[in-house]
């Protein structure tokens, strides 16, 4: 019994330490964001890696999700002859929920992992120490560009995913369910108001911050060679996933009661 309590206590302390470390990295990042001229060259490099290079996989995930969503709802909607509402259902669920969350998860898996692996390798090969020894603060050089690039690119990727998902639904609606193209388009965009798009986009800023900061933090924490880099990368993805889903839940509840 005592052992269990001790174990739980230790876990809890480790969890608080983790949270503390993550928070202090966030604050440091915010300070460097305003305190120094930041490196546009690195920001643009990262924007390409995080945003542009993620477009193919986001395209596939969003397209298939749109198709599946339309087909699965058709299964029920056909019974009550309400196929035309599939268009609204797809467009609303993509913009409000699936677009932001799926894009964030895909980017966390692709980019978050890459960030941790890169920074982790830099840590274990003393490149981060070298930066610091040359009076080049690692947070300014490594974290701020990745943070900014994520914050810029994730919302754009989300809008892109929303559009592709709606297009996936359109394919099903028009070619499988034989709805007319103009009706489908009208039914997609009529019920869609700015609020739907924005509630989806607000969240993505937080998701982007989570991906970049957890990725960098895990990278900085890496110890012990190749195995350490592997472990850190796994942890980075798992923790990002959990935090993204938890944040999503929190925001959905918040928006539900506020608006």
């Amino acid at each position, binding site marked *: 019994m005592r052992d269990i309590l001790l174990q739980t206590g230790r876990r809890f302390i480790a969890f608080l330490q983790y949270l503390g470390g993550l928070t202090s990295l966030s604050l440091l990042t915010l300070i460097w964001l305003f305190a120094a001229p930041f490196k546009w060259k690195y920001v643009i490099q990262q924007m390409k890696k995080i945003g542009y290079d993620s477009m193919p996989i986001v395209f596939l995930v969003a397209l298939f999700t749109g198709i599946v969503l339309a087909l699965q709802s058709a299964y029920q909607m056909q019974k009550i002859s309400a196929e035309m509402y599939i268009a609204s259902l797809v467009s609303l669920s993509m913009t409000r929920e699936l677009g932001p969350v799926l894009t964030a998860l895909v980017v966390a898996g692709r980019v978050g992992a890459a960030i941790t692996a890169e920074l982790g390798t830099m840590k274990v090969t003393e*490149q981060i*120490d070298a930066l610091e020894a040359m009076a080049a603060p690692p947070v300014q050089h490594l974290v701020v560009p990745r943070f900014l690039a994520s914050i810029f690119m994730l919302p754009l990727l989300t809008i892109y995913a929303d559009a592709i998902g709606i297009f996936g639904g359109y394919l099903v609606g028009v070619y499988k369910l034989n709805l007319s193209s103009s009706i489908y388009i009208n039914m997609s965009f009529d019920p869609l108001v700015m609020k739907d798009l924005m509630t989806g986009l607000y969240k993505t800023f937080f998701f982007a911050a989570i991906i970049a900061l957890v990725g960098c933090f895990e990278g900085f924490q890496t110890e012990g060679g190749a195995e350490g880099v592997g472990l850190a990368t796994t942890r980075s993805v798992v923790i990002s996933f959990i935090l993204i889903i938890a944040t999503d839940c929190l925001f959905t509840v918040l928006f539900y009661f506020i608006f």
Partner: protein
Amino acid sequence: MTTIMIDVVNVRKSFRGRPVLRSLNLTIKRGETMVIIGRSGCGKSVLLKHIVGLLKPDSGQVLVGGIDITKIHGRELDKIRLKFGMLFQGAALFDSLTVGENVGFLLNEHALFGPDEITRKVAESLAHVGLSGIEHMKPAELSGGMKKRVGLARAICHNPEVIFYDEPTTGIDPIMADVINNLIVALNKKLNTTSIVVTHDMVSAYKVATRIAMLYEGAIIAVGNPDEIRATDNPVVRQFITGAAEGPITEAEQRR
């Protein structure tokens, strides 16, 4: 003129409850080459990182030119770091940059010179280490010995007052090791720098050292010039410098 460049006073440091440095004292004079010897994992690199300010001690002081660097942060600390050059154990070149960008990193970062002047200084540093004309290559294309030499070029590019070498000869062949030893001696003479070398390679230690200090169980147990160290009657130092498998060091480890 012999003045004190670096003074390490009563530094203690533990990692996860395990003491690595226990009340360590060491004085390094301006212009000398201090070689710190000791077994792998005895805390030599940790000591070096304390002097550069990459690690903060649990207690004690590290004075660089009279300033306690354990008490300062940020830009103040960076100002002192610009006087340092450091060669890391694995060279620690930035993979994403070319050799030229690596060597000129600090000059670019702090905009110490104009672009043309930086290009010239980078070429000069690479020439110092015998690697002219490889500015465009990526670190991944270099051999281990070349990486170390590029790391050295990066460490000396801004004419530092103090150069730190973390195991400069580990992991490279004996001939290249001698080339590096000669470089350390030559740089020390030519640029008139203070050098601190961490190594467990005694050939290298005797060759480059003005003085040698032995780190054992978290403290400096002997300091002296190479001849004094060779003639030492301290059994621990004796075992280490002769490389004997049996002696007080290994006995102490077996008792643990």
